[in-house]
């Protein structure tokens, strides 16, 4: 069970896939579903270690990381 997960603001995400590409654990994929802005948004498919690389590189300020214990905001 992964202790960390991601939250995506689907109104901001433009489905660019940068988060999917930079994730060191290859834990993300673009959902087959379309968000309210007409783009496919990322969803977790593997284990997230809470490194926040996706957050740092997301050009649309859309993806954040939440971890169960300690740290993990932002």
């Amino acid at each position, binding site marked *: 069970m992964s202790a960390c997960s991601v*939250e*995506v*603001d689907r*109104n*901001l995400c*433009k*489905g*660019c*896939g*940068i988060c*999917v*590409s*930079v994730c060191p654990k290859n834990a993300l994929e673009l959902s087959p579903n379309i968000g309210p*802005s007409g*783009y496919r948004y990322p969803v977790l498919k593997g284990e997230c270690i809470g490194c926040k690389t996706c*957050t*740092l*590189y*997301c*050009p*649309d*300020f*859309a*993806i*954040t990381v*939440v971890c169960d214990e300690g740290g993990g*905001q*932002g």
Partner: protein
Amino acid sequence: MRRLRKHFSRKYLREEVLPTPFCPGCFNGVVMNVMFKAFEELGVERLKGYVFVSGIGCSSWIPSPHIKADTIHTLHGRAVAVATGVKLAKPNLNVIVIGGDGDLAAIGFNHLVHAARRNMDLLVILVNNLVYGMTRGQASPTTPEGMRTVTTPYGAYEPVMDVAELIARTNANYVARWCVANFNQLKNSIKEALSKHSKGFRFIEVIAPCITYVVRYEGKTPGQKIKELMKVCRPNTETPYGRIGILKAEDKPGYLDRYFEYVKRATEGDKGE
């Protein structure tokens, strides 16, 4: 439904204008994240005392309308000239110019090079997307030789202008060049230019290829390009975009130091002998 967590950059943004007008995957957004992370690590929670000045072009949209601070969106190429005026009128403000290669290195290069010569107390961030992106991808002075653009379908044939090296040859105090994929190094450079080396002219070039008119023409996705740049842009090496790293870091007196010294000499001279 529970409210979503906010991305760390959003405290520095005028949230009512989001989403940005940039293309999906545009590296301008990554440059914003790097800059905001630098501010966060410097303990700057609100951008009071900072003025952001930009001209015309895609990256000139980074400050205005997005950044929650004083912003001035000026004429094409004239951001450095306006920023110089702001700094001279209000020396206590931190003045930051953000612009692209078309704005700062083409039409506005005269202002850029003379502000550098004067060691004017400004931080200039050049977001080099390698083309004139806003007008649909024509070759610019920084287009690498051989690169295909809409105006150079057989590859760019003009010799490229290495802006960071040119500015490093002037009297500027601090010059660095990083790729948008060098997140930490770029962030540290911005921090240095706002703290340790906060005087004089500070110039940081960021290689951020236009997603639509460079990266898409290469047949790559934004994600593939950023991974490629992570491999190519190793510090202190030559790359197709020039030498990556800190090219210069000095602490000479800035323009304002010299100016106030001059004023002092002039006024004391009046009183004296």
